């Protein structure tokens, strides 16, 4: 799935360590040309025939003009088949979501919107930190209270956030998602409960909830380290996550991925691990492969590379069959559906899930302890297991390696 990145923001949020830049002026035409070129090149290189999902991330993609979005989509449609039902998602910041702008995006081909609705803030944003060594499609975590918004350094108010979501729902009914952060320094259980309520009142049919991680190098992390802001105890964070699960499930949402909830509509592809929607390249007789790519991060360097060689990918490493299985396991268990026998079979025709994980060993023990389930539906986590997935994975990977 093509994931064009618009790597610019107007301001950096205090918790953000993504690859984004705050610059006085953006040469939109140049960036557009590069995005178009890169999309063409990558599609051609990967030999993908049909695209089911396009995701505009960044930075703040809603700062790009609808024209740019349109140009990229045209390029995608020209290089591969882009069916009418394909998902085209755009991330948006409430401060760049006027009705006319959103309509423009819709006209350009966007049919899903993901809005960060940060809440509360108290501190100004920090200067941009050094770029990290991987591209991440970021969904800006949000909350719905002005004080929190300031602490997180967001550049909009709660009222603006509310308005943005309403506008979006008008234009993209049933296809608007809101992003919410929890576990903010100093946040109480009650405050979070109120947030959830507010979110439920506001949301469409998809919510993404992310636990705030204090990333090294961000202003927020520095403040917590200094003691200027209190870090939250582990138990409280666990409670908040549990609360979110309970409340949203009661409201009819399906908790289909670690951080994502959806109701009525099917689960959007963009949050589900890439393999789920055919992001692998058939090679030869029924073999599949996946690649690990490292992108050039800094926009100027990226643009130069795109101009000279067509794309800004620093390295591509083809994954071995074992590595693919490891990724399948790691990403697949993040969903409530887990890994079906059929899906596993695509990647491991000789050894079934049962053969690997059914025998006495780590997986069996985890099942007995109530974290995992292996049955006719496949291998997946229980709700409790999902919450501690990263403690289960090393054991499972170890078991997989031994086979």
């Amino acid at each position: 799935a093509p994931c064009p990145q618009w790597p610019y923001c107007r301001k950096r949020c205090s918790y953000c360590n993504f690859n984004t830049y705050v610059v006085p002026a953006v040469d939109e035409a140049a960036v557009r040309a590069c995005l178009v070129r890169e999309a063409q090149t990558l599609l051609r290189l990967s030999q993908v025939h049909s695209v089911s999902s396009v995701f505009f991330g960044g930075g703040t993609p809603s700062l790009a003009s609808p024209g740019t979005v349109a140009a990229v989509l045209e390029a995608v449609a020209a290089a591969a088949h882009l069916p009418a039902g394909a998902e085209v998602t755009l991330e948006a910041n409430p401060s760049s979501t006027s009705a006319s702008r959103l309509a423009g995006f819709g006209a350009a081909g966007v049919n899903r919107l993901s809005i960060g609705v940060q809440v509360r803030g108290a501190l100004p944003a920090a200067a941009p930190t050094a770029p990290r060594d991987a591209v991440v499609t970021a969904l800006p975590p949000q909350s719905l209270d002005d004080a929190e918004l300031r602490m997180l350094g967001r550049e909009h108010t709660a009222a603006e956030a509310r308005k943005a979501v309403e506008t979006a729902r008008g234009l993209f009914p049933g296809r608007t998602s809101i992003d919410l952060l929890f576990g903010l320094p100093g946040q109480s259980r009650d405050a979070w409960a109120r947030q959830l309520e507010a979110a439920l009142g506001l949301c469409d049919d998809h919510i993404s909830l992310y636990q705030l991680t204090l990333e090294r190098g961000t202003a927020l992390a520095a403040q917590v380290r200094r003691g200027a802001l209190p870090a939250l105890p582990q138990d409280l964070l666990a409670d908040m996550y549990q609360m979110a699960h309970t409340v949203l499930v009661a409201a009819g949402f399906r908790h289909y991925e670690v951080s994502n909830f959806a109701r009525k509509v099917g689960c959007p592809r963009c949050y589900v691990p890439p393999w789920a929607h055919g992001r692998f390249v058939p090679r030869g007789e029924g073999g599949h492969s996946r690649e690990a790519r490292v992108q050039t991060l800094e926009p100027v360097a990226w643009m130069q590379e795109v101009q000279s060689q067509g794309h800004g990918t620093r390295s591509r490493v083809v994954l071995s069959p074992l590595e693919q299985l490891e990724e399948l396991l790691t990403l697949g268990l993040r969903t409530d559906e887990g890994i079906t026998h059929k899906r596993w079979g695509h990647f491991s025709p000789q050894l079934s899930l049962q053969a690997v994980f059914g025998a006495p060993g780590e997986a069996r023990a985890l099942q007995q302890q109530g974290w995992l389930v292996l049955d006719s539906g496949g291998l997946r986590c229980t709700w409790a297991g999902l919450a501690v997935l990263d403690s289960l994975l090393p054991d499972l990977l170890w078991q997989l390696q031994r086979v």
Partner: protein
Amino acid sequence: QEKLDMSTYPVESIRNFSIIAHVDHGKSTLADRLLEITGTISKTDRNKQVLDKLQVERERGITVKAQSASLFYNHEGINYLLNLIDTPGHVDFSYEVSRSLSACQGVILVVDANEGIQAQTVANFYLAFEAQLSIIPVINKIDLKNADPERVEKQIEKLFDIPTDECIRISAKQGTNVEKVLQQVIEKIPPPQCNTADPLKALVFDSTFDHYRGVVANIALFGGEIAKGHKIVSAHTKKRYEVNEVGILTPDEQPTHKLYAGQVGYLIAGMKEVAEAQIGDTLFLCKQPVEPLPGFKSAKPMVFAGMYPIDQTEYNNLKSALERLTLNDSSVTVHRDSSLALGAGWRLGFLGLLHMEVFNQRLEQEYDMSVILTAPTVPYKAVLSSAKLIKEYGKDQITIINPAQFPDKLSVSEYLEPTVLGTIVTPHEYIGKIITLCQDRRAVQKDMLYIDENRVMLKYLFPLNEIVVDFYDALKSLSSGYASFDYEDAGYQSADLIKMDILLNGNPVEELATIIHNDKAHAAGKLLCERLKETIPRQLFEIAIQAAIGKKIIARETLKAYRKNVVAKCYGGDITRRMKLLKRQAESKRLMRKIGNVEVPRDAFIRVLKREPDK
């Protein structure tokens, strides 16, 4: 190379002496100056610690191995042979000092003009005094600003009963008055009382290992003569050898035709290991057996430490490094040992903490090896009362080094712990704090006296294990460095010892069991539990960390279970990084030790077991 003829030095022209002093008072610098004055080495700026050949000696400014040097000096028309025997300057090596002294008839006692008499000044003085050696008091560093030689002279008079006018004030660094010292050596120190006509009797006071020539033993002749071709025997090992080479040290090896009674030098006789030439041993001719010289002791380790390679793949490298290093140090005892946590390794015995540190440093510098050192333990004893155990061990008193060997209270009539008699010299303003520190270490005061208006000397009987880890550091730090410490073995005393176990969710962790005095168990247990809580990673269930004596729990910490541990987002480039991290965690499962259902990574043991770094 031409061989020297030593017969031109009759016994009356020989003086055998040593320089003794507290650490850093200038012993080695004085030795440098004496070598220069007598023309043994040429006078240059580069003569610093000439006799300290080991890198570690030069870096730390200490002498670890005794060296000797033969100096030639003409005084009032007579050619004298002056044998200087340099001694190790640290409390850990008092046995070596005593053996070197037994080859001498006198000593130069060096005292720093500012610091005055310190603990080792006293200790070494008594060693010389008991050996009935002549003592030449020398006050050094008179060139420094804070020098107060008059005060020091009074200290010497008071403590050692030596008249102040016998003291020679010098600056070894600048060479001031050093010649006078040499003259006093000749005039005050008697020649050795021995006869070349007697049968050969040679004392071994040190040995080194040379890869090409084998063991080089430093010897002092108490009677007879020795030359190439002689057939000799070791009193201790009873092994026989033929002498290949004899010579003197100037300080480099200088072969001679013979060595005669009263002279000091070296000998090479086909010995393969330094254990064959132990300090204090006596060598004599096969055909003429003699009474061995008194005072020989096998090296007795005072401090033990576990030594393990950082990784088991380094085991063989460490093994050969240890073999080579101990070639030149027969006072380190080596036993193979193994730990469930750390793999195969050794338990080494050292003469003291400095000895251990120097050893470790040499491993790093000379053999490029980094190791894990576990906290030192001392040799406890138990007097068995169980007939079954007595039969098993073959005796009724056993030495316990490993906690796993600790016999139960029911089978024991008495536990014993090793003790030392410690001497502390301190300015009086620190007395209170020091007394508290000593009491805290279960020490019993044996003596306290003022050695001058400002300084006090305290003698305490300490359990050895209370001082082997960080007593010295604590003493230095609460006295701002002014207090000094020296100790000697004082035998064993009865002790209320117990074995403390560490349990994780009720299962004992063998590697962490310790033998400890009952009074200290609670504090130690609590500390261990806290450290473990910080180093064991959280798991999917709660972990109870407990310290126990038998069935009684004396300390406890709880490590709560993970309730949430999943990364919020995982996209794009994140995935690669995530996989790397997870796979690394999966890999380390291999090295995990499972105690019941608790997974403990290897480095948790290391962090809990290793010695505290010097503060």
